[in-house]
C-alpha cells in the first residue's frame, strides 16, 4: 500500500486533527480558555514543523492536489501567521465565551487556505476558496453584542457570494472554451488572443482582486474591517491576503502563462491604482484598525507589482514580502490589541504620550510601522526593494517611480502614529502586557529584524522555487 498521500497531505491532515480535537473538547467537559489556547498553540507549532519539513514534490487525486517544498513553505508562513495572531490576541480570545467555536472557524479557514495553495485544478481552487472565506464571515460576527459586527459579517458573506459567482462564471467559461480546468493542461490550451479566454482571465482575476481588496474591488473592506473584532481584521488583512497572493501567483505563473502580456498589464494598472487609492484612504484614518486595514490595501498593490514580473525572482520576492508583512502587521495589530484591551480605544489620537510609561510597546509599534513603511534596516525595506527590483526588470520605470513615491506617502500616516506615541504633552498610564502576548510580540520583532538582514532566508525561498 502506498502511504505517499499522507506525506503530501500531512499539514492539512494535522490541521483537521486540531479541529477534531477542539470539537471533542467542546463536546466533552469543556476546558478553561487558557488551557485551550495553550493546547492550540502547541498543536499549531507541531503543524508548523510538519508544513515546513519533509516535503516532497508530487500530485495526488488525479492532479487535483499538488505538494511541493515551495507550497509547504507558503503553508508554513500562514500557520506561523495564525500562531502569532493567537499569541498576540490572547487577551481578547481568553474572554470569549465561545472560544472553541472561534478557533474551529479560524482553523477551518486555514485548512481552506492550505488546500487552496496546493490546488492543481480550478475546481479544487474554488472549493478551497469558499472554505477559506465562509468561516471568516462567521468570525466577523463574533462581537455578538455589537450590531456593527453582524453587519460586517452579512456584508462580507453577500459580497463574497458575488465574487464567487464571478469566479465560477470565469471557470465555466474557461472549461467551455478549452475543455480543461487543470493547471497542467491549461497552458497548452490557452491562446493569448482568444476573447473567451481573455474574458475568463478577467473574471478569475476579479475574484482574486476582490479577496485581496484591490481597487476597484475593495469597497467591502471598509465596513468589514471596521465592524469585525480586531483579531478577525488582522486575520483578514494578514493571513487571508497572504494566502490569496500566493494562489494568484501560482495560478498566473502556471495556468495563465500564455496570456502573460495581458495579465502583466492588468496587474500593473490595478497594482498602481490600488497603491494610490489605498494610501489616500489610509491617510485620512483616525482609527488604528482602519488605518492598518487600508494600508494593507496599499501593500497589496506592491505585491501585485511584484507578481507582474513573471519570473522566479518575482515569485520569490512575493513570498519573501508576505513573510515580512506577516511579522510587521501582526506586531502592529498586536500592540493595538493590547492597548485596546486596556484602554478600550482604537483611536490614533489616544496614543498620545504612550512612550512615557510604555517604552517597550512604543518601540515595537514604531519598529513594526517602520517595517511596513519600508525603512531600512527593517525587513520591510528589503521586501519592498525586492518587489520593486523584480517589477523593474521590464524597465517600466513609471511603475517603479510611482510605487516608490507612494512609499513616501505611506510614511506620512505611519509616522503620524509614531509622532503621537512620542508626544510628551500627556502621559498614558502603564499598560500591562501578558506573557503570551509579549512572546508573540518578541517573535514578530525578531522576524522584522532578522528576515531582512539574514540573506539566507531569501536564498532559501529562491532555492525552493528552483
Amino acid at each position, binding site marked *: 500500500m502506498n502511504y505517499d498521500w499522507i506525506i503530501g497531505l500531512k499539514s492539512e491532515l494535522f490541521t483537521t486533527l486540531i479541529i477534531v480535537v477542539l470539537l471533542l473538547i467542546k463536546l466533552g467537559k469543556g476546558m478553561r480558555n487558557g488551557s485551550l489556547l495553550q493546547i492550540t498553540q502547541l498543536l499549531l507549532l507541531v503543524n508548523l514543523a510538519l508544513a515546513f519539513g519533509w516535503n516532497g514534490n508530487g500530485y495526488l487525486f488525479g492532479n487535483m492536489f499538488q505538494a511541493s517544498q515551495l507550497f509547504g513553505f507558503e503553508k508554513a508562513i500562514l500557520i506561523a501567521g495564525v500562531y502569532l495572531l493567537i499569541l498576540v490576541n490572547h487577551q481578547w480570545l481568553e474572554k470569549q465565551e465561545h472560544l472553541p467555536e472561534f478557533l474551529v472557524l479560524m482553523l477551518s479557514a486555514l485548512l481552506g487556505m492550505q488546500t487552496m495553495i496546493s490546488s492543481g485544478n480550478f475546481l479544487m481552487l474554488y472549493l478551497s476558496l469558499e472554505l477559506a472565506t465562509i468561516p471568516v464571515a462567521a468570525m466577523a460576527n463574533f462581537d455578538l453584542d455589537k450590531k456593527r459586527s453582524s453587519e460586517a459579517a452579512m456584508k462580507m458573506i453577500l459580497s463574497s457570494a458575488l465574487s464567487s459567482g464571478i469566479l465560477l462564471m470565469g471557470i465555466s467559461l474557461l472549461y467551455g472554451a478549452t475543455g480543461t480546468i487543470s493547471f497542467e493542461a491549461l497552458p497548452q490550451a490557452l491562446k493569448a488572443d482568444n476573447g473567451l479566454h481573455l474574458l475568463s482571465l478577467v473574471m478569475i482575476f476579479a475574484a482574486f482582486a476582490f479577496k485581496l481588496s484591490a481597487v476597484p474591488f475593495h469597497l467591502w473592506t471598509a*465596513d468589514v474591517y471596521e465592524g469585525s473584532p480586531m483579531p478577525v481584521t488582522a486575520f483578514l488583512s494578514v493571513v487571508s491576503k497572504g494566502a490569496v497572493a500566493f494562489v494568484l501567483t501560482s495560478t498566473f505563473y502556471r495556468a495563465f502563462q500564455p496570456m502573460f502580456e495581458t495579465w502583466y498589464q492588468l496587474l500593473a494598472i490595478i497594482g498602481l491604482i490600488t497603491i494610490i487609492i489605498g494610501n489616500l*484612504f489610509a491617510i485620512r484614518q483616525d482609527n488604528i484598525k482602519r488605518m492598518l486595514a487600508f494600508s494593507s490595501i496599499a501593500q497589496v498593490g506592491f505585491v501585485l507589482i511584484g507578481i507582474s514580473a513573471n519570473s522566479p525572482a518575482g515569485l520569490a520576492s512575493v513570498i519573501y514580502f508576505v513573510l515580512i508583512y506577516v511579522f510587521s502587521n501582526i506586531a502592529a495589530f498586536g500592540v493595538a490589541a493590547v492597548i485596546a484591551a486596556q484602554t478600550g480605544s482604537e483611536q490614533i489620537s489616544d496614543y498620545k504620550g504612550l512612550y512615557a510609561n510604555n517604552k517597550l510597546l512604543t518601540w515595537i509599534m514604531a519598529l513594526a510601522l517602520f517595517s511596513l513603511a519600508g525603512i531600512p534596516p527593517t525587513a520591510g525595506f528589503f521586501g519592498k526593494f525586492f518587489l520593486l527590483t523584480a517589477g523593474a526588470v521590464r524597465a517600466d520605470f513609471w511603475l517603479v517611480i510611482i510605487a516608490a513615491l507612494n512609499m513616501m506617502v505611506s510614511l506620512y500616516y505611519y509616522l503620524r502614529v509614531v509622532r503621537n506615541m512620542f508626544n510628551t504633552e500627556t502621559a498614558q498610564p502603564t499598560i500591562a502586557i501578558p506573557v503570551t502576548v509579549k512572546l508573540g510580540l518578541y517573535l514578530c520583532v525578531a522576524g522584522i529584524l532578522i528576515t531582512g538582514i539574514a540573506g539566507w532566508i531569501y536564498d532559501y525561498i529562491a532555492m525552493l522555487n528552483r
Partner: protein
Amino acid sequence: MLSATNIALIPLLPLLGFVLLSLFGKQLKPFAGVLATVLILVSAVLTGGAAWTYFFANGRVNDVYQTIIPLNIEWLRFNDQLSIQMGLLLDPISVMMLVVVTLISLMVHIYSNSYMHGEKRFATYFAYLQLFTFSMLGLVLATNIFQTYFFWELVGVSSFLLIGYYYDKPSAVAASKKAFIVTRFADLGFLIGILVLSFYGGSLDFQTLIQQLTTPHTPALDAANKASFLGVSALTWGLSLVFIGGAGKSALFPLHIWLPDAMEGPTPVSALIHAATMVVAGVYLVARLFPIYAISAPELLAAIGWVGAISAVIAALIACTQTDIKRVLAYSTMSQIGYMMFALGVSGYGGEAGLGFTASMFHLFTHALFKALLFLGAGAVIHAVHSNEMHDMGGLRKQMPITHISFLIACLAIAGVPPLSGFFSKEEILLAAYQNNTPIYWIALITSGLTAFYMFRLYFRIFWNKPHTGHAHEASAIMWLPLVLLAVGAAFAGLIPFGELVSSDGKALHSELHLSFSIAPVALGVFGILIAAWLYGKQNAKPASIQSSLGGLFQAVYHKLYIDELYLFLTKSVVFALIAKPAAWIDQHIINAAVNGSASITQKISSNIKTWQSGKVQEYGLYFLGGVIGLAVLVLYIW
C-alpha cells in the same frame, strides 16, 4: 594591518558598544561613557594602523594606490545575475574617511563624558552615538551601492534619534522629524537611482559598475545612454537621482532646510554629525562614483558644480545674519560642503585634471577638523553661559582662555589664513575652479571673503565685544582636551602632502602653491576679518545702522531667503490642495457616507435586516461588476 579581521573590527566595535549599552544600559550607566570611549579608541587605533599601512606600506603598487577588498561576502542573492555583497573596501578615500570618522568620533566621545554628565539618559546617548559611528563606518567601507544605501539609511535613523535626543522638547522633536522627512525625499531619489544604475550596469558592485559604465561602447553603457525618459538618458537620470540622495544628506541647496533646525540636538552630536561625518556623506558618494560622473556624464557633473557653488554663497550670506551661534556654524557647514561639491564639479578624471577631486577630499579632511573644533568650542561656550544667542555672550576670552585660543585657531583656519590647514585646501579648490570654470571661481572667491567675515563676527561677539558680567568659567579638562587636540590638527593638517595620497586615479598628484595666486583670497580673507573686527570688536551702533540701511535685503537674508516659507507654501497650499483635498472628498463622500449612512439608518430603523438592505451592499456589487466589465472592455477591445 589590512587583514579582514582588523578592518572588520573597526565598525564592529561600536556596534558591540551599541548592543551592550542598549541591552544593559541601566546596569552599565556609570561606565557607559568610559566603555563607549574605550571602544572607539580601539577602533581609532586600528584605523590609524590600517591607514599607515595602506598609505605608506602596502597600498601602493607601481606608484598607484590599489583598491583592496579584504572581505566581500554574499549577503542577499536576488537572482543569478544580481546579488548583494556585504564587504569592506579600502582605497585612498575610504581610508581617509575612516580616519576622519574614528578621530572625530573619539573626540566627541571624550568630550561628551563631561558635557552630557548628569543627563538622565546618559547610557542611551552613548548607545546612539555608537550606533551612529557604526553606521557611518559601514557606509564608508561599503563595497557596493546597496550596502551604501543600507548604512546611509541607518545613519539617517541614528541621526534622527540623536537630533531628537531631548524628546521632551517639542522643537527637538519637530527638528528631527523635519530632518527625517527631507532626507527621506532625497533618499527616495537615491533608491530609484540605484535601481536604474543597477539595471543598466548589471551589478550593484562599485568596481563593476564603474567599469561597466565608463568603458566606452560596452553594451551596458550604450544601453544606458540610449534609453531615455522625458528626453534625458537613463544614465543621466540614474546619476542625478543618486546625486539628489547625496544632496539631501549633505544639505545642499535647495534641500538644506533641515540642517539649521537639526541644531536642536546636543552640541557634541552636531560636531560629529553635522560637521564631520554624515553631512559629507553626499560628497563621499559622488567621490565614490566619480569616474562615472566625470567620464560618462560630464554635463551633469558641471551642473553638480553649480549646485555646490550656489549653496556655498547662499549659505555664507545667511550665516552673516544669524544670531544663534550654532546656526551660524550650521550655515557655515552648508557653505563649506558647497565648496567640496563644486570642487568635484570642476574636476576631471585622472592626472592634472583631477586636481578638483583631490582638493575636495583635502577640504573634507581639514574641514572635519576645524568644524568639529568650532562646534565643540561652541558647546563649551553654551555650557558656560546657558544660551545659544550671541547677545548673551561677549568678553569670554578671559574666563575661557583655552576655548578662546582653540576657537581662534579654528576661525583662522576656516578663513583661509596661512599657514593653517584651511588655507591649503581652500587654495587648491580655488585653483581648480580658476583653471576650469571662471564664474564659479569668482563666486568661490567672494564666498571666502564672506566666510572670513561671518566667522570673525562670531568670534568677536563671543569673546570680545563687551565685558563679560556672568559667572562663566573654563570647561573641564575632559572637555578642553579634545579642543586642544583638534586645534593642533586644524593648525597643521594643511602640511600633509595630500595630493600624494588621494587623487582621482590613485596616482600621486604633485600640487604646488602659487604665491601670486594666493594673494587675492588671502587679502580678501584678511579684509573680511578686519571688517568684522571694526564692526564687532567693541560694542557699538554700527552693525545696527548697517542692518537698518540694508532694510529689506537684510530681512530677506535673515529669514533665510524665505526658503522654509516657500516649502511650507508648496506643501500646504499646492500638495495638500491637489492631493489631500480630493482624497478627503472621496473619503467623506464615499467611505464615510457608506459607513455613516449605514450607521444612521441603524439608529432610525430598529430592524437589523433593514440595515443590510440599505442599498449599500448592492452598491458594492455594482462597483464590483463595473470593475469586471471595465477590465473586460479594456482587455478585449482596447489592448
